[in-house]
């Protein structure tokens, strides 16, 4: 295991060391001490290593992640796992705004609460939040799943495309073109599997699903065969 102390502010040196790791590296387990809210910790990883951040991280932690598993043992600032491509990012505490923004794949788990704009413009990532999310979450969400075990703030799923939203608690005002939708048995089964892989103990039967009414964006489902 490699242990890196960020007490002296050496985030750039850490990230360069992580970026240089070859795919077949044996250096697969990293512990980052004293993150002290610094920005862009473990951003841009591209190989399947495991990184544990021992404390609160700043903005864009584990941004653009590919294949790596990053665990933050604390809270995160804005944009954790933004543009994640694959791999797993887990926040043991709360996440600030725009968690997993624009994420294309992989799994982001926030065990606490996420703030406003969680999953904004998500494009395929799966996001599981153990607590609640703030306003404007899943704004313009295109693909992927956002699962919220707590409550959602106002304007959930505003201008949503084809992402699927699952909420166990209360939902504030729904955003434009976002509606409650039926959940098929297959979707509920997939939700249960997602909760299990996220290691969040919640009963899939207790969730309601929300998604696009498909009246806002310039694609009408009746014309799907034409594309």
């Amino acid at each position, binding site marked *: 295991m490699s242990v890196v102390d960020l007490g002296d502010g050496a985030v750039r040196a850490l990230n360069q060391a992580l970026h240089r790791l070859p795919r077949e590296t044996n250096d697969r387990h990293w512990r980052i001490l004293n993150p002290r*809210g610094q920005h862009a910790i473990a951003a841009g990883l591209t190989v399947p290593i495991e990184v544990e951040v021992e404390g609160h991280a700043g903005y864009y932690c584990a941004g653009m992640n590919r294949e790596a598993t990053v665990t933050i043992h604390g809270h995160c600032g*804005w944009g954790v796992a933004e543009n994640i491509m694959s791999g797993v990012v887990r926040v043991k505490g709360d996440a600030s705004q725009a968690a997993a923004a624009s994420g294309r794949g992989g799994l982001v788990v926030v065990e606490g609460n996420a703030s406003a704009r969680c999953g904004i413009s998500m494009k395929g990532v799966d996001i599981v939040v153990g607590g609640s999310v703030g306003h404007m979450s899943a704004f313009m969400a295109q693909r992927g799943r956002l699962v919220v075990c707590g409550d959602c703030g106002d304007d959930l799923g505003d201008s949503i495309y084809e992402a699927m939203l699952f909420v166990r608690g209360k939902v504030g005002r729904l955003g434009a073109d976002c509606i409650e939708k039926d959940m098929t048995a297959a979707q509920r089964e997939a939700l249960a599997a997602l909760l299990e892989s996220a290691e969040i103990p919640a009963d899939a039967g207790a969730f309601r699903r929300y998604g696009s009414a498909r009246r806002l964006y310039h694609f009408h489902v009746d014309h799907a065969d034409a594309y």
Partner: protein
Amino acid sequence: MCGIVGLFLKDPALHPTLGAHISRMLIGMSERGPDSAGIALYHRPIAAPGSKLTLAHADPNFRWRELAGALGADLDEEVDVDVRADHAVFTLAGGHAQARAWLASHHPEVRVMSYGQVIEIYKDTGAPAVVSRKYEVAAAEGSHALGHTRMATESAVTEAGSHPFTADADMCLVHNGSLSNYNRLREWLRRRGQAFESDNDTEVAARYFAYRLGEGASLKEALAAGLTDLDGFYTFAMGTRDGFAVLRDGIACKPAVLAETDAWVAMASEYRSLAGLPGVERAVVWEPEPTVVYSWSLGRGAGAGAEA
């Protein structure tokens, strides 16, 4: 961008370390605001009916003691002087109103940074570390403090455009964001007797809150009224003689982090500025909700507590 910080000490045992902590918090926000910085210290209280003024002059060699002598002679009272670079704190045996009126007529070039019995405000252009060192912030003791690092958007990079802004005795405001309806609101406040010293949007907010407090509103009520009357982006932190409050607008695109232990409450734009506080690893750390007023007061028995 801009960065704001605030520290409110519940445990008097920490008072000697106020300056050291707020100075480090301020410098922690340097990347968010490199062009000017300011600090409000609540310390060295003057017993009534005495008061103190923090004054500033463009000339770093200004003869503060001569000014104090002339002021004292005309007001027939003793004036104590503490010079810090281009700022000076005048301590008066009487109230501040007469002294401010005297300064306005005899030395209009002297800027009044703050007045009251507890507050002192120091601010200048330059990097936060430079400003903090210039006014020896790290050595200050006290009960609470607010700070601001500025990246100017709505008015020029000048000392006058720097935060904290004050608009009444022992009151100050720091702001991250920008307001859009401040010209009209400034006219509204002028018609109600408020005078302005800059073209800055945050000064309008400070005078708005001072106006509400002057109407008899509590700290919490004054800030809540701002949710209706102020249009724009803001995270505000406000200090009064014995209070500290934080408010974010409904869109909440300006960041804020709060942390609290039994000994202190701290606020900063980012966690980076809180990372060095004593016992922060055991603090409750959270992001303040949009449109919720968080406020704390000293001197309710043991009781500083949040009233959200």
